[in-house]
């Protein structure tokens, strides 16, 4: 399970980085509130993962100082597109934890998968991307 949790941690770290980049391009109050809430949620997940991995005595690779973004974010449309990609990626990482875990760890992974999928849907609605949902959130 440690390998899957470490991958989830890497996804959460990447999400925190991405929100720092994409937040700059957002000005609307609705967008900003959503981005702030999302970033706070990812930080909370990251902190919980760090302590869980520590309890499991598993070492996680340190977060890189920077990431190669999949595309340059220069406007709101790009910011929303990145937010959607980030949440889809986080959902995929947490879904991979499900079969590797049970009990409280499985429940945490499920909640994190659901939260990321719901945020992706909220970003799609804000960006007027249709459909706003997909049949298999977290399935790569």
């Amino acid at each position, binding site marked *: 399970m440690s390998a899957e949790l470490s991958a989830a941690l890497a996804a959460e770290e990447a999400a925190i980085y991405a929100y720092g980049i994409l937040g700059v391009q957002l000005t609307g109050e609705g967008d900003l509130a959503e981005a702030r809430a999302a970033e706070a949620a990812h930080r909370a997940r990251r902190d919980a993962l760090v302590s869980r991995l520590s309890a499991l005595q598993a070492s996680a690779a340190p977060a890189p100082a920077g990431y190669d973004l999949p595309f340059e974010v220069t406007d709101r449309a790009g910011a929303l597109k990145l937010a959607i990609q980030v949440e889809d990626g986080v*959902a995929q990482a947490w*879904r*991979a934890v*499900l*079969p*590797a875990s*049970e009990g409280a760890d*499985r*429940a945490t*992974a*499920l909640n994190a*998968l*659901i939260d990321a*999928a*719901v945020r*992706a*849907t*909220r970003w799609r*609605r804000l960006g007027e991307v*249709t*459909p*706003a*949902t*997909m*049949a*298999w*959130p*977290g*399935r790569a």
Partner: protein
Amino acid sequence: MATMVLTYRVKRRQLIRLAAGTALSATALAGCGLLDDDPEPVPPPDALQPVLDEALQLAAAYDRAVLAEPGLAKRLQPLAEDHRAHAAELARVIGVTLPSGAPASSAPVAGGDAADSVATLRKAELAALKTASAACRTAPAARAGLAGSIAAARATHAEALR
């Protein structure tokens, strides 16, 4: 599967002993199926069966809503399609065949149940989210991802209907 059948047979034997030792009426026994000639034990329902049932019910509910109010089609049809995809995958994993003429494969019938409002559909999604979440938490590893993605999809549907 072998374990489940075994459990069932034990229960069946216990039931027969119970029946022999008490004065149950013939009708009650018939109702339990104990006097049937058919020796085939009915397997207990699959843990994912309630999730499948809900997927079919939700797809049908969306179909009725669209039929009652065609303007909602663009918004609701993708959600119905998600549920149909879930039903097909669940049926494959459980090992059942979706009944022909089930909501998953047939056009909605006018004059059936009254169409649900968007608010009612959202409530149904939230209830179905609970079922799929519970199934995910207790599922064997091989099914955890399937149930988890279905739970997440239902949560996003509820979000899309806000």
